[in-house]
């Protein structure tokens, strides 16, 4: 399945993924300017989708400047280089380019989608936004108002409150505890120079990851990538975020809100993506509380007892810590009962693990549904970016289903046992819950 093709200016590793009759060819290109990208060329529709990310995200916001990195996402179309904000936006709309940006704890991510016919102009617009954002005072104030309004709304949103409080409990003094968007107090104090400092810190070639899918050939793309990203500095000053340790449970925090349904977030330390047991753990958590109606948690909490509309649990692998997080919403008077059921389900899974039949079903689902993640240019670009960020290798797309197939019942049992400690959960609850206590199987 491996073939190496040498071109004059590009080094291309060509891989064919094993998707039934169809082949998705993922190539790695290295541009003349030294930028690496993963590419899938497909000329069926006249569109190009690019996803990219800079390593380091909101966790790098200096203390007191929480929200600075996230603020940049709102300023990327507010003027760059020779274009003021309105001119930039008019140009973007005229070209019908879709540009969007997102700041996570670990990465600053961007995406560009363009019609093939506007390709060069679209990349040029992105070049300006990335390399020469203006961060002008007036636009800054406008965007600041927008983030202040959303921060105020988020401060009242039960799900956001619960997960934020959970992160605070889990991470204590580590930057992960602060979330990625800042709060009203920190956003109000930011000034344009804070954004300039974060821009300098984040927007560099070291740690830049790129994936491109659609109607473009490698040579043309290589030249465009050099133009677009080439002028960024090689690297920035400052080290990475420190490793985080996750607090031990049991811990229970209750945030009182006058709502009919309690929102509960529960979890503990998990494992990182590079953990050798990640795949068995992933399979175990799918059986316990992954998507679909068949999970144990959904069966016990929703189907049998009608205690919730949705309950689930999953691994959250961050760069510097691994988490296991679950959540549900349940009417206040049933909060204790629902958590009791969840604890029982977790305990049984830790002690006995899944059955062979559950494992077999999980494998056929997870391997069979993998192709569903690759049915549009935009989704493929997202998958290519994620696999690069996780350093899984360009052959991961062909290896992945084999890794799932190879998981044994003993491995899944061991992973469940390692991860699940029902009596040591960190729990945060928003609402007026009844019957909750922090430990014990009785809820």
């Amino acid at each position: 399945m491996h073939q190496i093709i040498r071109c004059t200016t590009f080094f291309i590793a060509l891989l064919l993924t094993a998707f039934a009759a169809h082949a998705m060819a993922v190539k790695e290109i290295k541009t003349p300017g030294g930028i690496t990208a993963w590419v899938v060329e497909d000329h069926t529709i006249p569109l190009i989708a690019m996803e990219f990310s800079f390593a380091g995200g909101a966790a790098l916001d200096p203390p007191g400047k929480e929200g600075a990195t996230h603020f940049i996402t709102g300023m990327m179309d507010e003027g760059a280089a020779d274009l003021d904000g309105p001119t930039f936006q008019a140009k973007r709309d005229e070209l019908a380019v879709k540009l969007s940006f997102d700041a996570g704890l670990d990465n600053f991510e961007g995406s560009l989608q363009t019609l093939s016919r506007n390709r060069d102009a679209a990349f040029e617009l992105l070049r300006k936004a990335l390399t020469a954002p203006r961060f002008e005072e007036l636009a800054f104030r406008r965007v600041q108002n927008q983030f202040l309004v959303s921060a105020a709304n988020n401060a009242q949103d039960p799900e956001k409150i619960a997960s934020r409080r959970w992160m605070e409990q889990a991470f204590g003094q580590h930057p992960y505890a602060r979330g990625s968007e800042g709060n009203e107090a920190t956003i109000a104090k930011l000034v344009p120079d804070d954004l300039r400092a974060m821009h300098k810190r984040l927007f560099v070639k070291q740690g830049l990851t790129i994936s491109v899918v659609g109607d473009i050939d490698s040579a043309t793309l290589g030249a465009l990538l050099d133009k677009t990203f080439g002028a960024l500095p090689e690297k920035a000053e400052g080290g990475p975020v420190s490793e985080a340790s996750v607090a031990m449970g049991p811990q229970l925090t209750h945030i009182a809100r006058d709502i009919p349904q309690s929102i509960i977030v529960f979890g503990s330390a998990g494992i990182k993506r590079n953990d050798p047991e990640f795949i068995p753990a992933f399979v175990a958590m799918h059986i316990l509380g992954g998507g679909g109606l068949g999970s144990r948690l959904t069966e016990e909490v929703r189907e049998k007892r009608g205690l919730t509309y949705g309950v689930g649990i999953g691994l959250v692998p961050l760069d510097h810590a691994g988490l296991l997080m679950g959540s549900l919403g349940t009417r206040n008077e049933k909060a204790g009962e629902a958590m009791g059921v969840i604890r029982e389900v977790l305990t049984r899974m830790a002690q006995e693990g899944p059955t062979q039949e559950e494992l077999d079903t999980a494998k056929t689902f997870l391997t069979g549904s993998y192709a569903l993640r690759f049915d549009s240019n935009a989704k493929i670009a997202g998958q290519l970016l994620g696999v690069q960020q996780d350093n899984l290798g360009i052959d991961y797309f062909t290896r992945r289903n084999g890794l799932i197939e190879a998981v044994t019942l003993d491995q899944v049992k061991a992973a469940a046992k390692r991860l699940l400690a029902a009596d040591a959960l960190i729990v945060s609850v928003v609402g007026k819950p009844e019957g909750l206590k922090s430990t014990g199987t009785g809820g």
Partner: protein
Amino acid sequence: MLATRIVVAALLLLAFFLPARALDIDVTNFKLENGMEVVVIPDRRAPVVTHMVWYRVGSADEVSGKSGLAHFLEHLLFKGTKKHPPGEFNRIIDVNGGEDNAFTSRDYTAYFQRIASDRLELVMELEADRMQNLVLTDENVIPELDVVREERRERTENDPSSLLQEQVEAAMYTAHPYGRPVIGWMSEVAQLTKEDALAFYRAHYTPANAILIVAGDVDADQVKRLAGKHYGALKNSFEPMPRKRTPEPAPIAARRVEMKDPRVSSVSIQRSYLAPTSSTAEGLEAEALDVLAQIVGGGSQSRLYKRLVVENSLAAYTGAWYGGDGLDYGTFGVYAAPVPGADVAKVEAEIDTVLAEVVAKGVTQDELDRARTKLLADSVYALDSQSSLARMFGAALTTGSTVADVLGWERDVEALKPEDLAAAARKVIDSRRSVTGILRPETQTSN
């Protein structure tokens, strides 16, 4: 999780209405002998297929006092048949690496699977089976009613903006059933029974009232053969009746709904106007309203944004929408989130000024051209997703439009002139047709 999606014209669901319906695709449309309509949309890029069955029934087809029944039945369709006992449907989909779900709106109920294309026949067999052979027991139905009530708590009662939205829609419709929420009023949902669900099922689920949409790695001949085998074998248990809902009396009064809630941190303002839909509009009205919404409130080049956000610094966000995907009525609307400390009355007055200008003077050729460029590009972007394409056709065919209407959207948008937009604005932006909704914080006295 069975995340049933409720489609409502809520403030935060505006993206749903952004039209992207002009398509350069090879669509095949035919009917089976029993009257079931079929649409095939090939997309051979990945070995994946989206299989959907849409029923021409939604919450607006419920009888008064049974609100939420269409949606409750949608949940119960996952409870098994004689041939496939409870849990087996989902297990089969799981084992075959598929995903499945369903959603209900005011005018339609739809069930779908996304799965490897060589499993198409399998999902057809399952979906055809539950069209007529549903078996419900108290053991299944009673916990599911609790699940639906939790869904209402989660989506609506825990969220003041959803509660306000319900009130705005209730105020908009005096007689027509669009005034009740898709998920139902809690007091009525609590009373729904297995017998209600079965009666509704028998009255609305039959091949002649259903539409099959298959998008993805298939060809029309293959779908024709398989659909004929599985759906074509079903006999109609009744003849679907025309869907005649109580019409709205002529709107004569501007209405206003204000809600205060201690869970609200910042004010929001919205204004909805009763509007025609794609299927009830005269001439190019619906297309004109699509483009008008873009000019008035689409993004940072729009009139509302320029005036309220950039020039006057009164609002943090502004927007506009046209919801034209209804069988009977649609809405055209605008909204704004005032900046902290802004005079709310002044924000509303500025919205009125912007709308009055559009009514008085229409739009410029340049504005029309720019908005049109954006919407036509969106229709190219829509080609990238087989499941969005499938949804687009399903929504159109269950709300009185045809495949030809969908395919002709681009041509119609190209034909628009500024006068068309001005005429649509004069007709729709009329205070008598409006409901204004305002959500305000309430200072908490205790917690």
